Structure formats: structure tokens, C-alpha cells
């Protein structure tokens, strides 16, 4: 059985800066995978290339055994994407956005309507469904974006920082939806800074640093008895523990 995601030597540079320097990312089918790393590690660039939104300078990407750039027909129908920056069609209402997204993928109208109703209900967006997306809060945008990414029931879902700015209640809803989704054999790949969340949700972790994957595997193999946070700090190299300088900070004795 092919892995859900497999990249080989994925490479991208912007001018003189190498953003992604030969990434071999592997995500087995049916896993709930976390992609973690400090700011600037290349997580977003990697996800953009894997989802076909950014052209890589080198390397191969396969999703379910199909090359993303050579065989987009097989790939694009089977992936769902929530990219960074919450860029959505601002002047559509939440509901119209879902209808548009579904129609673009050729799903019959009444089927889209049914799925949209259910997704809006689960995401707690029923009241806001006829408001323009431009007036949505950050959390609402994440939720409507996730709903749009799920609408066509993709086999692999890529989410860039899906929980950033989402309130705890909505985050709980999101994780429940995603758990059910992976339990059925579909795959989720999401990037995050929040180690506790990754530790709680994921069964597979890829750690990126400086444009490379520095560790990857089942959660327990990566953390090896430590908390994921400790393992992560070890892997990326702790950059000062805050003991130096700042002697003036704090209340005077």
C-alpha cells in the first residue's frame, strides 16, 4: 500500500535563501500526522508545494502513489487544503463559499446543499452562514475554510495551522470532526506550533528545522519517553534558556 504522502528531495529556494532544502516527508495512510517546527522551518513552503500551489525547484511528491505535478487529475480530486493566511473569497457568504467550492468540483447541487448544511451545523456557523466571509472572525474563517476543504470528502487533508486563533470550543469540534475522519482511513496532515495539541491528536509526527525533516515517525518513536515538547527542543537545538541578560526585568527586590 502506497503512503498517503511521500516526497523525495523536495527543494525550494527564494532568491539566495533556501526555504526547503531536500525534504523527504512520509505520511502513512490513515494517520493523523503533525508537522512541527519553529518559525521559518519551511512547513508552509512544504505544504504549498505538496498541494500543488507552489512549484518546487526540485524533488518528487507523491500522494496516494500519484505524482502531484505530473498527474494532477488523480491527485487534486482527492486532496483538501486549508492554506495559511485564511485567503478565501471574501465577498461570498459562508454558505455561498461552500456552494461555490462544491460546484467547482462538480458535485451535484442538492448533494452540496445537504453537505453544506451539515458542515455549517457541526462548525456552529448556521447563524453566520449568510454573512460575508470578509466580516468573519479568525476562528470563523478557519472553520469555514475547513468546511470547504472537507466538502468533497478528500482522501488526504492538508491543514496549515488550523487551530491558530480558534476558540477552545470550536477547536474541540474541529478535533472531533478530524478524528472521525481519520478513523475511517483518511489522512490528515497539519502543521502546528502547539506541541500539546500535536501530542494529544497525532499518531505520526514529522519535525522540521532549517528546511529539513530532522525526525519523523510514530509519535512514541519520536518522543522516546520524553514529552514531545522536550524532544522537539532537543531536536531543533535550544536557543538560549533566557538566563542571560534581562537582569532589569521583574519587580525590584
Amino acid at each position, binding site marked *: 500500500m502506497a503512503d498517503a504522502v511521500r516526497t523525495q528531495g523536495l527543494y525550494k529556494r527564494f532568491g539566495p535563501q533556501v526555504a526547503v532544502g531536500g525534504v523527504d516527508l512520509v505520511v502513512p495512510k490513515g494517520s493523523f500526522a503533525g508537522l512541527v517546527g519553529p518559525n521559518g522551518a519551511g512547513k508552509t513552503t512544504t505544504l504549498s508545494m505538496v*498541494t*500543488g*500551489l*507552489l*512549484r518546487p525547484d526540485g524533488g518528487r511528491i507523491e500522494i496516494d502513489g500519484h505524482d502531484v505535478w505530473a498527474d*494532477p*487529475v488523480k*491527485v*487534486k*480530486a482527492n*486532496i483538501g*487544503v486549508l*492554506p495559511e*493566511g485564511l*485567503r*478565501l*473569497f*471574501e*465577498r*461570498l*457568504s459562508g*454558505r*455561498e463559499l461552500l*456552494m*461555490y*467550492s462544491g*460546484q*467547482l*468540483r*462538480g458535485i*451535484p*447541487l442538492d448533494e452540496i446543499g445537504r453537505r453544506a448544511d451539515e458542515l455549517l451545523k457541526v462548525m456552529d456557523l448556521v447563524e*453566520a452562514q*449568510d*454573512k*460575508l466571509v*470578509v*466580516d*468573519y*472572525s479568525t476562528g470563523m474563517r478557519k472553520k469555514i475554510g475547513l468546511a*470547504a476543504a472537507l466538502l468533497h470528502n478528500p482522501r488526504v487533508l492538508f491543514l496549515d495551522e488550523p487551530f491558530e486563533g480558534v476558540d477552545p470550543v470550536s477547536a474541540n469540534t474541529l478535533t472531533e470532526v478530524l478524528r472521525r475522519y481519520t478513523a475511517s482511513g483518511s489522512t490528515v496532515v497539519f502543521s502546528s506550533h502547539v506541541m500539546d495539541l500535536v501530542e494529544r491528536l497525532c499518531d505520526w509526527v514529522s519535525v522540521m528545522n532549517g528546511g529539513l525533516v530532522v525526525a519523523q515517525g510514530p509519535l512514541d518513536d519520536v518522543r522516546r519517553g520524553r514529552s514531545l515538547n522536550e524532544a522537539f527542543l532537543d531536536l531543533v537545538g535550544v536557543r538560549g534558556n533566557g538566563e542571560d541578560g534581562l537582569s532589569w526585568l521583574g519587580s525590584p527586590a
Partner: protein
Amino acid sequence: MAGVAGMTWLFVRLKLSMIRGGLRGDAGRQAGFVFSLAAALLAAAAGFALLSLIRLAPSGVALDLVTAAFAMFAVGWVVVPLMAFGLDETLDPARLALFPLTTRQLAAGMLAASAAGPWPLASLAALCGGVVALAHGVGGVLLGVPAVILQFAFCLTASRLVTTVLSGALRSRRGRDLLAVAAIFAVLLVQVPNLLLNGRLSGDPTRILAAAGEVMRWTPPGLAAHAIADGGLIGVAELIVVAMSVVVLAWLWIAALRYALVRPDSSNQGGGSVRRSRTSRFLLGGPLGAVVAKELKYARREPRARVNWITAVFVSAVVMFSIRGSGGTGWTWAVVGPACLAALVIGLQSANSFGIDGRSLWMNAVAFSTPRDLRTDLAGRHLAMAVVAVPLIALASLAAALVAGDAVWALAAAPTAWGVLGVAMGVGAITSVTAPYTFPERMNAFSGAAPGQGGQAFGAAFVTMVAVSVLALPVVLPVLLGLTWWALLAVPYGAAAAWAGRRVAAGIGFARLPELLAAVSRPT
């Protein structure tokens, strides 16, 4: 006092370093910066020279002209920062609300910061031309210098007052939407006197000028201009009035600033709901229908799209009126010509089809897996444009025909113009994928593209225009020369051109989808 002076200097340095920031970044931005600097220098020299030249006019006319110029400066100072709001971060007092600054420090600092920079200095230099134009004798020069400085201060405080009062509204989505459309109306209204003069609808321009001078005589810019011309005690009294008006404006501005700093931010308050569309049930359910429905909604809801349509309609109207004036070369030129130009102007909107989608275009990109999908997308955009443009062009043709004398002439003009629209959409589809550029998030009157893409935007529009004109000649020229039945061929010809354009564009566009995406999602 040292606090105020120090803080003022800090604000000025902040503004200067923001201007210098334009020098960093890629070559395009640097070129833009140098160009803007050169333009400011040129504007300063030209403004000074033009105002100075007014001296050659008879003294009454000269006074009216300078009064009008001073008033226009004041209006410009109020309107321009509103349209460019968001480009200059020192303008928004809310960004400074958290710093421990007194209102006095803030007021002095922001005033000084808005006087710093190439454009404010250019307008000060231009205003000095007023002294050359009007001053007679030592008194005139002695009063002229403070008069120009006061006029400049009047412009600054008036502009600050208006931006501060509106800053709350400008930060809310609805306020900005409204302003974007209002701004384009302001720009277009400036053209109206021009049109009236062209159309010879009113009499003698000097009479209009005199009437305008009469009205503006007692406004602060008028008083300042008059003080320079007077050069005596009356002038001094007038300057005192101008100074008092500056003080009142400054006081009002400080009050507004104080109020703005403690008022809750309204930018996160949501707008109302939209009605579920009833038209969508008449559209096809598939991707084509989805794109058409989305494009039609965007034409209504997105201020940039609305501005584009309003501009296109307005420019068409201007063309129609101007051509009528020149007349005398047969009815085909007077009716078919304007109708085709209207179609060209409307069709040019499709030369950057993906610009308005901008950063949200990824939603299409992740769904498109063959060139055919992109072709459907383009077809949807063309169809949506046709839904609005075809009746509009028919109306324009009818109007041109009625103005020229016989409504029947529209029967030849409308199909020809529809053909031109088709050609414009076909060519536009190809430019949309070969030279796409980002529309700025905030509409402003100075640039239709993201920093560094201005030249490309202009080039793309120009090349499209030339290509459309050449490709449309086979159908337009025979009609213009009197072969009116040829108009029947125009519609199929236009449809074929649009189809061919989409076909070619889809092939090119799909191959460079990531580059297309990057080009329309540049930060603005």
C-alpha cells in the same frame, strides 16, 4: 516643552525612515521610489512655474486663478490621504494609542510628520509660486511668505482633521467599501467641468472663473491669496483670520484625536447578512454556473469590481460626448465609433481576470486538474461579463444613435460593438494568464497594481488595447466605411475570438498556475 519637541522630531524621523524603507526591497520597488521622488520634484517645479506664470495674467484674473489653485490644494490635501489611507501608517492615531503620549505631543508630532516627505514639500514649493504670481512690492512679499506658510498649515490641519474624524469609519469594512466607491466618484466629478467646457454647454470660461473666485474669496485659501495681492493692512487682517481658522481646525483636530484614541475599534464589528441568491436557480449547477454566479456577486459586492464598472461606464460616456463634438465624418463614425470604444473600455476589464480574486484564487487552483477546468473558469468569467456588458453596450449604442440623430443606426452599432467586446475578452484571457498582476486591496487613485507591478499593469493594458484594436479591424472597419450589413458578422467573429482566446489562455495558464497564483497574490 522639550518632550513635545523631542517627540515631534521622533515622529518626523519615523516618517522619514518609512519613506526610506521604500528604497529597500527589489529593483521594481526601488525604481518606483525613485520615480515617485522624481515626480515630486517635477510637480514642485511645474507647480511653482505654473503658479508663477499667472503673474502674466491681468491682476483680477490672476487673483481668481491663484484663489482657485489654493482652494484646489486644500481639497487635494483632504481627499488624497483619504484615498491612500493605509499606505501611511503615521496617519492612523489608533496605532499610537498604546504609547504613553499626551494629546499635545501626538498632535505636534503627527502634524510635523505629515509635513515631512517629498510630496508635502513639493506642494509647499508649488504654493510659493503664488507669491510670485500675486505679490506687488515689498508688502506683498513680506505678507506672501507667512500667507503661503499659513495656507500650507491650513491644508495640513484640514487634512488631519478629516482623516482623524473618519479614521474609525475607515477601519470598518463598510466604511472602506463606501469610501473606495466614493473616491472614484470624486475623481470622476473633477472631469465634469472639463466635459461641460468641451460640450460648450455654458458660456465663457473667464465668467465661470470669476464666479468661482467670488465664491472662494472668503474661504481661508481665498483670504490667503488675497492677502498676498493686497500686501497692506487689509492683507494682515486677512492673514490673522487664516491663522485663526488654522488654530480652530487644529483645536477641533486635537479634540477629534482625543476622542478617536479612546473610542472602541469598530473594525471588527460585522456587517449584515446577504440574501440567498434567487438568480442562482436559473444558472447551471456545474462549475460554469458557479463561476458566473460568483462573478456577478463580485461585480455587486466587491468595491474594486464596482469601481472598475463605474469607471468603464463613465469613460464610455466621456468618449461618446467628445466624439459627438468632433463630428462631420458620417453617421457610422459618430455612432459605431463610440459604441466600439465603449465595448473596448468595458472589455479591458477582462485583461486581468484573476486580479480581483487575488489571494483567494488558490481555491480554484486546488480544484483545477486539467486545462479544461481553467477554460470553464474563463468561460464563466466571460459569460458573467457579457450578462452585464451586452445590455450596457446596447444602451450605449442606442444613446449614441439618438444623439447622432436616428435610433435605427444602433442596429448596426450594437452588434459591431458586441463583436469588439468578444475580441477584447479573447485577448484579455491571454493577457490574464501571461501578464497577471495584483490589484491593491485598498483602491487608491494612484496605482492600479501592487508595488513594483505598476509598469507591468500599464503595459498589459496597453498591449491588450492595441491587440484588440488590430484584431477588431476586420469587422469594425467595413461597418465604419458604410458596409453596415457587415455588422452581422461581428457577433460570430467576436464569439470565435473569445473562444480561441480562452482555448489558448487555458493551455498557457494551466501550465503556469502556481506562477499565476503568485502574481495575483502579492502583498500590497
